[in-house]
């Protein structure tokens, strides 16, 4: 690990997100949103060159595309991945997506549809989108830019859009084997589902964050991974790649106030 301390929280989260794809093999890496997409791109350019990626439209590229206006950069396409083909990939299970749900519960069930009562919701969000199909067919990770009890809800999410480890939701004969929820990267920590009966654990804490603070901002009890430590800092090489992939600093607008990666002690 480098001793580099000059990085932002967004950059720390990009590196943490990139770790989600380690060891997945030849799957389509879909990072939806700026930080997950930069995470997937970083993974491909460092320890996971075997990953498949798109240009965020409909073509496969072997070299990740920088975000925003591209200047001189001309994408080199290696294949095609229209929405129709994405479904074929999803249903065939060769994908690991990272998306940002509106709510997540202790079972890993996710919600992107509505907050509040379904018939007359407090807030209509996007709709379930591809969550039911993604979650039951391939590997998924989540991204939470603002770790709070509003996201990590007590009880179940208001509208179960993505499946999770809630036994009450699974009827006999339904195939649960393809469900694989890996990581949650938040602005406070990295979580996984590797506790007893897939209980959520804190796997690493971002610099300056305590387990108690994470617990306080989470609507259900958390476990600590035995190897719980600090989220690895970005190396100089990783930062160089991130800055090249995001020349317009879109990542700087992802976390409120664009705070430094190492939180100032109060």
């Amino acid at each position, binding site marked *: 690990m480098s001793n580099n301390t000059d990085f932002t929280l967004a950059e720390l989260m990009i590196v943490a997100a990139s770790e989600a794809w380690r060891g997945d093999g030849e799957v389509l890496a879909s990072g939806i949103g700026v930080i997950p997409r930069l995470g997937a791109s970083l993974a491909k350019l460092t320890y996971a060159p075997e990953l498949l990626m798109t240009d965020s439209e409909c073509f496969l590229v072997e070299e990740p595309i920088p975000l925003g206006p591209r200047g001189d950069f001309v994408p080199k396409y290696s294949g095609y991945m229209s929405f129709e083909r994405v479904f074929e990939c999803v249903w065939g299970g060769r994908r690991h997506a990272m998306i940002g749900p509106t709510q997540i519960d202790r079972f890993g069930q996710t919600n992107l549809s509505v907050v509040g009562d379904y018939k007359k919701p407090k807030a209509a969000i996007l709709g379930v989108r591809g969550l*039911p199909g993604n979650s039951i067919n391939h590997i998924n990770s989540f991204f939470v830019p603002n770790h709070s009890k509003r996201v990590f809800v007590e009880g179940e999410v208001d509208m179960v859009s993505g499946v999770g480890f809630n036994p009450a939701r699974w009827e006999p004969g339904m195939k649960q084997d393809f469900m694989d929820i890996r990581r949650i990267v938040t602005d406070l920590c990295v979580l996984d589902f590797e506790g007893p009966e897939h209980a959520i654990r804190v796997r690493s804490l971002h610099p300056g964050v305590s387990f108690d603070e994470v617990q306080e901002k989470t609507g259900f009890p958390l476990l600590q991974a035995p190897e719980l430590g600090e989220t690895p800092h970005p190396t100089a090489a990783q930062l160089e790649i991130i800055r090249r992939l995001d020349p317009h600093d879109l990542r700087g607008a992802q976390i409120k106030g664009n705070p430094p990666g190492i939180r100032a002690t109060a």
Partner: protein
Amino acid sequence: MNKLMTTADVVAQLRDGMTIGFGGWGPRRKPMAIVREILRSDVKDLTVVSYGGPDVGMLCAAGKVKKLIFGFATLDAIPLEPWYRKVRESGALELMELDEGMWQWGLRAAGMRVPFLPTRCGLATDVTKLNPELKTIQSPYADGEVLLAMPALKLDVALVHVNVADRLGNTLIQGGDPYFDHLVARAADACYVSAERVEERLALTPEQARFNTFERYLVKGVVHAPCGAHPTTCAPEYGWDMGHFKRYVASAAEEGGWQAYMDEFVTPGEAAYQDKNGGIERMGKLPLPVF
């Protein structure tokens, strides 16, 4: 054979209570000129089947939608569709909210004239809980797996916008992603397309001909509608109109906002619409979004 007609001719084919499917995806290649014609008509109580963008939002705002069969509604760069949200939050919509993969699966079943297609998508979520008409089925083979039987989504009418069409009903989609227009067309009793350009007869190279994604026997009518996808994209020709979208989004927060939007952009007709948006020259050159 000449299938050329006007947007008004298309809307004259629509009846209250029909189930109408829309091509495109979110704010991309939506048949908006026809949507605006529907907004000007008194057709109502529609069941709208769409990968929702401003087509869904505007039809909701105008009170045309009885039921929505969808997986999402979004303007993409502006993630939340303002009028869908507003009407959805009022509790006024009947819904069949589906995984976006289930949506195309249902259209596929309709196009293939089978009552359902099996899938795992939707199981163990509230999609099945909230739509009790969705049934499961056990595999008749040794695995015995329990799957969702996605029912066919049969459409009365499909509305699709393409880059080029001819008078016979042949179509060409030149954007990178053809979305699911072929499934929308196949699921319907009648498909009407609007097109940026209409030719007498398409005469394509083999490379171009690959991007004819559904057969002309599905197409009942062809409308010449230049910039007919505005304010959504029509790649590779023009991108979405962010200025227009912002004005549209703002209307959802204003008192009487929908009526004001209608008065300004819709009621005066398509020629006035083009003038209001800087003319067809400007609209046809809006830059494509970069992701």
